């Protein structure tokens, strides 16, 4: 049995801020908040949080077909493996977990792909002329016939690949 002086629960205060309490509960909590500065302040905080959340950018539309394709490509890159039944179950579960993690990461971060550049090759290969740090980390540079260094970069979105040569005088 609730005592007359008992505060509403945090859940009730949050639901009040969102307008989601039933009629009687709304009356009861509102009446209490009118006389209780602490609960009134809590409701105001929840109202502010709702306002700030509403101002955030909408979640991206996920192309699940493309995501599924990328996951299949990544899985196929591991090459063929012989696994026992037990390992195969773990392998499938592991792949499912990885896919779920990828989905979570996608929702948490929306990369700006318009200008994103990443070295066109997946492995790290640092190339820097002595005393000059112009080449991006991870660039797989090659020596040219002129004795210069060239590397490739791939631009997401446009799908364009460029080849940059740094000239050594």
């Amino acid at each position, binding site marked *: 049995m609730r005592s007359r002086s008992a505060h509403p629960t945090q859940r009730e205060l949050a639901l009040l801020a969102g307008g989601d309490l039933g009629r009687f509960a709304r009356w009861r909590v509102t009446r209490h908040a009118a006389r209780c500065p602490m609960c009134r302040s809590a409701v105001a905080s929840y109202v502010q949080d709702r306002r700030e959340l509403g101002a955030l950018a909408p979640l991206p539309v996920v192309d699940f077909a*493309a995501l599924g*394709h*990328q996951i299949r*490509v990544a899985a*196929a*890159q591991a*090459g063929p493996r012989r696994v026992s039944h037990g390992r195969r179950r773990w392998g499938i579960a592991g792949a499912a977990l990885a896919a779920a993690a990828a989905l979570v990461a996608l929702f948490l971060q929306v990369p700006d792909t318009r*200008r994103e*550049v990443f070295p*066109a*090759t*997946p*492995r*790290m*290969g*640092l*190339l*820097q*002329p*002595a*005393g*000059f*740090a*112009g*080449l*991006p980390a991870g660039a*797989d*540079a*090659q*020596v*040219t*016939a*002129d*004795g210069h*260094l*060239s590397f*490739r*970069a*791939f*631009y*997401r979105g*446009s*799908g*364009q*690949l*460029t*080849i*940059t*040569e*740094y*000239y*050594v*005088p």
Partner: protein
Amino acid sequence: MTLDLQGRTSRPLHRLAGAVLAAAAALAQAQPSGPAPVAVEIAEEIPLQVAATDFADTELESRGGALVIDLAGSITFRHDGLEAVRALTLAVDAHAGKLGGRAAVGVPSLHARQGELFEVHLNVRLLRPLPRPPGPAVRIAVDGVLFDSLAAVGPDRLDSVRKMTVRELEARRDRRYFLSRLDTGGRAALVEAMQASLRRQAERPRLEVQLAGGGPATAPGRGDIRELQLALVQDPHAPLVLERGTALVNGAVSDSPRIVLRNRSPHLAGHFEIGWLVRDARGVLYSAGTAPGDPPPALQPGERFETRAEQRFSLRPVGLGGAAELAGMAAFLRSVQLGDGSVWIPSRSALDGLGLLDAVPVSAEEQRLTQLYRERGPDAVSAELRKLTP
């Protein structure tokens, strides 16, 4: 102090005006002073127009006695010529006479028809000495444009036309290969070929390549200097034959190799590129790129030539801890420009047969197609192959 219409002082307005003025002053300080940092130039004979530029993300920063220019942005061109553009090279100059002051950005695998727009992305870090010049900090010029017929136009100060031609021929070779897989084995065969290429790219051993400063490896006091004999990988269809090659190495540092070759074709041979491979103590083969060396103006049939270059390079396999040691080297012919202007490149089957496919980087076109496959799937690749292959 400002007055409102009734003559009363308005302190809030005064504070607001002060805040606006302060913000404007701060904004003016934050803006880079001087003219726009980038200028784009196109020679008259090139049928391109600049439709738009966007270098808002470019940053200039003074560090010590140098100006570091992080050039980031894009140029949108409109093609006004009749023939489709296949490739483009831009010369990017901040200070051509110094290390880090010049770069070239090549864009292969374009397909811009008359009237079409295409965007070229740039992400280049350059250096130039202070003080900052009065004009643009960076000048970008179109150095060469390659068309569908392999004709080209432009100043070609950076040997762009030859490089674009080689890349375009490699692109056509590799597109034909993937298209043949698609035509003979269907979608599944194309997927298999794409997967194999991606695996090869991921597994290809990498080198850390750095310029090793001036002076040959044979300078006194440089420690244990050895002369390596290069293993020569011969393509029986190549117009030039590699006869012998040596390089002076000291640990992981190597002078530019010296390679003797002979023109066995009945034609004049001009510029050539020799692929340079190095082997570590574990026997793993790495691609270092192209053996540097100034080619002769023209190599007569039967004539011999020895490549020479002064650069030294540090070549360390990626992922190895401690000091690396170069245990061996190999060379193969990558391209030859013949006297009639045509260009020879090895066939894909020859590269495969010679065991080079796993060591040398894939062509820019193969890399682009496999990236397209990764992001949009085999149907997108199939459409691209059909579009670009007559």
